[in-house]
């Protein structure tokens, strides 16, 4: 028994050493960002590896959050036309929430049909969606740019609106969403719906009131991935949006990278601020992530 206990202890120590090493590796770049962001010298790299440099200050955070972004102005001569953090945040939230809303609504609806109905074209349809997963978003840039340029809403090409951007991102996240949600719906017993139908519910009613509440983990994962793609996407945003008023946080971050110099402290301060919403969303949805991504794969 004591030998067993000693073994257990050794195993625990080994595990802890291994996991602490991984923790150190994971945290290292993040702490590097923090260390630069609070450095008072606004230099590109600290000359020594210390977490809290001498004279550490939150000035960079204050600047990022409260001062106008002078590179992003409709008219550089007038500071009132420059973007502020709140405007950038609003744009980013709109694109990210739009993408996750579209993904979850359209994805769940299509996945439900693929999971529950037997219909003409089912296999082909499903295969078609999965084949689209292989299409890199960047592979459609050239034609999408040309096409969305031609569709105008109130004199403005759809390409350069935030809704247009969210729709374009949704097309990128839908194939995986449908595939993942379908796998999850497959594991929800059919009898539950049948019981609801016998009780007089419509098919849509049963779907909304019986299936969706049971599929919360997979829905949460869809919302999360949609949010992430809308929040961080850069390529299309950079190509499609023109007016600085529409710029997102990711674009503001990119535009801080000057050709010769970058204000590193403010750059990393904005980077850290921008990381907060997705990290919080991850933590909030963490208990759903594992089952939401794997239940369909394990049982189906």
């Amino acid at each position, binding site marked *: 028994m004591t030998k067993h206990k000693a073994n257990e202890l050794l*195993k625990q120590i080994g*595990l802890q050493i291994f996991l602490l090493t*991984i923790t150190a590796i*994971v*945290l290292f*770049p*993040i702490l*590097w*960002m923090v260390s630069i962001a609070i450095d008072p010298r606004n230099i*590109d*790299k600290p000359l020594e*590896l210390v977490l809290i440099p001498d004279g550490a200050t939150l000035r960079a955070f204050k600047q990022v959050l409260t001062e106008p972004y002078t590179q992003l102005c409709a008219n550089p001569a007038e500071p009132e036309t420059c973007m502020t953090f709140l405007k950038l945040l609003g744009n980013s939230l709109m694109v990210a929430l739009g993408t996750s809303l579209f993904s979850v609504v359209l994805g769940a*609806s*299509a996945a*439900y049909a*693929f999971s529950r*109905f*037997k*219909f*003409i074209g*089912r296999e082909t*349809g499903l295969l078609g*969606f999965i*084949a*689209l997963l292989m*299409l*890199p*978003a*960047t*592979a459609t840039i*050239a*034609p999408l*740019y*040309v*096409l969305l340029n*031609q569709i105008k809403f109130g004199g403005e090409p759809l390409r350069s609106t935030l809704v247009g951007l969210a*729709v374009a991102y*949704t*097309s990128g996240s*839908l*194939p995986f969403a*449908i595939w993942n949600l379908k796998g999850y719906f497959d594991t929800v017993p059919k009898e539950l719906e049948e019981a609801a139908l016998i009780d007089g519910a419509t098919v849509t009613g049963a779907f909304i009131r019986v299936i969706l509440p049971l599929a919360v983990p997979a829905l949460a994962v869809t919302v999360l991935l949609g949010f*992430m793609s809308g929040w961080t996407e*850069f390529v299309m945003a*950079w*190509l499609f949006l023109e007016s600085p008023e529409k710029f997102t946080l*990711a674009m503001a*971050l*990119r535009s801080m990278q000057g050709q010769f110099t970058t204000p590193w402290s403010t750059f*990393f301060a904005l980077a850290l601020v*921008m*990381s907060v919403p997705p990290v919080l969303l*991850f933590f909030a949805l*963490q208990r759903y992530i*594992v*089952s939401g*991504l*794997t239940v369909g*794969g*394990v049982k189906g």
Partner: protein
Amino acid sequence: MAETSLQSQTQKQSGAANKFWRSIKESLGAWAYIAPAGLLMMFITFFPQVFQAWMAFTDYRITNLRFNIFNPETWEAFAPEMVGFENFIRVITSSLAIENYDFVRLLTFNIVWTISNVFFHVVLGVIIALALNAKTLYGRRIYRAIFVLPWAIPGLIIAFTWANMFDRRFGAINQLLGLVNEWFGWAINTDIRWLESAQPPIGGILSFLPLSFYAVLIANIWLGWPFMTVIATGALQSIPTELYEAAKIDGASGWQQLWKITVPLIRPAMIPAIMVGTIWTFNNFNVIYFITRGGPFGRTELLVTQAFKLVYEQRLYGVAAAFSIVVFIVLMILTLIQNQVTHATEAYYD
């Protein structure tokens, strides 16, 4: 008797007709559910692809942007010229007037990049999931929370951070090496030009990979394993513990349990994740574009970053379209091969 059989026959016929109508009706119902997603994909992905296929055969340039497919008045003045297969030929034979463009090198590099990344993601992801899934582990919840960070922090930001850390002068990595030297009295070079050096660190067959490849590989491994850990965790939690207890009674060692129980049972969940991971890594834009920018001399360029440059920097829409179609075909072939291989091995395990 004859009458009843006749009756049942007509009944059967009308039953079949009913069934047919019912299946049509149900199909319409099902397609109504799919329509919103289907229309969006049709418009944003499929239609542009068809348009792209047409563009690929033209010399579409910036001047042709005023060409509007929905407006016949612009057709004559701004329509691009048809050039046949010229774009494809130029893409594949590397005869584009762009610096450092070599299709075979791009493709080889892209494949090596994908395989090496996915390999490390899966191996590390599974090992860490196994450690986190140990029966008794102190701090499990804290580890789980920390280990999601590389996935939760936007990839764009991580890429910028690693680019800064790999900097030659006072970059975190070189400083860390200096610290290691100090601790152990070693003399590792602390002036390594991680991203600029064209000298391959490993010669022979791997000499086409510059040092910056290993640098971005490290950055992308850091970024990619948590996804695999999450999938592996879900799969591990679905394995009944009785299996391990039975194996223990039969005298199986820990190693045998791993290879005979754990690995075969997490396979079904890992394979789709690996396929998705392969596609994501193959097209991983952020890490390459923001860390090495494809350098030095375009040797770490991926197909997607090259496509982006064709559109954004060169504005060669026709060539970019042909290029993207080639990339799509390559990816399709690779996925089919991968599917074939994984299916084959699956049958072997069953």
